[in-house]
């Protein structure tokens, strides 16, 4: 019996466990939402402590990054990611986890090619494409300002 690609796909679909996208989304929503609400709590705390409006965001980010990396160190962030998927990887805490996790994991390979190189396995991609696209925005903004006489 010949099985073409389409039939094979259907067989896989039948055999694999029922898609739990709805459940995954609920978990991602809840955990992602909680992390952001916690960020808002931190925001209000730093504001109450007298941090200037321009710096509050950075303090919040630094705090979240610190906490996520400590949780990564004791092996707990991986569990959160397994449970919440994008709810754990999309907040800035996921970026911190993506940096610290491979750094710790590859410690045995030394501090040059292990820790420091692996820090940027995923974070490098985020920084490269983030900054490159910011250059495009900057260039367009610059040209618009220049030629609109602004």
């Amino acid at each position: 019996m010949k099985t073409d690609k389409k039939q094979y796909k259907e067989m896989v679909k039948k055999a694999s466990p029922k898609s739990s996208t709805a459940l995954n989304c609920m978990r991602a929503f809840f955990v992602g939402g909680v992390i952001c609400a916690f960020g808002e709590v931190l925001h209000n705390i730093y504001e109450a402590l007298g941090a200037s409006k321009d710096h509050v965001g950075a303090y919040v980010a630094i705090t979240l990054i610190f906490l996520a990396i400590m949780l990564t160190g004791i092996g707990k962030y991986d569990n959160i990611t397994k449970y919440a998927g994008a709810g754990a990887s999309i907040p800035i805490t996921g970026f911190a986890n993506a940096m610290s996790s491979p750094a710790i994991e590859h410690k045995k390979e030394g501090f040059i090619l292990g820790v420091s190189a692996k820090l940027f396995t995923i974070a490098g991609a985020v920084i490269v494409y983030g900054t490159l696209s910011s250059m495009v925005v900057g260039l367009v903004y610059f040209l618009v300002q220049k030629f609109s006489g602004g």
Partner: protein
Amino acid sequence: MNYLWAFLIGGGICVVAQILIDKTAITSARIMVLFVVIGVILGGVGLYPKLVEFAGAGASVPLTGFGNLLAKGVKEEVDKIGALGILTGGLKASAAGIMAAIFFSFVASLIFEPKAK
């Protein structure tokens, strides 16, 4: 009230990412890159700052907010120093977050041992 909006918008952004992961073959690392770039674009055209005003950390904590920060930074630098700001703005604005992540990750790699698998 602003906690509720932070929760709802932040959660909502994560759900969009989760749907993309589940319904397409895009890996989680690529989603992270994609969301930063989307944030830069939405920040560049001036839409994302409005979402941040409305949802606070719900918009600034997800990676789209990181992208927005890059776009905001590059615009501010272009205003301040002109064309050179195109190169310096993005990294300058994100320096605190990136440096914190590098520093804490490095310290963590000194303190913690890899988990046995």
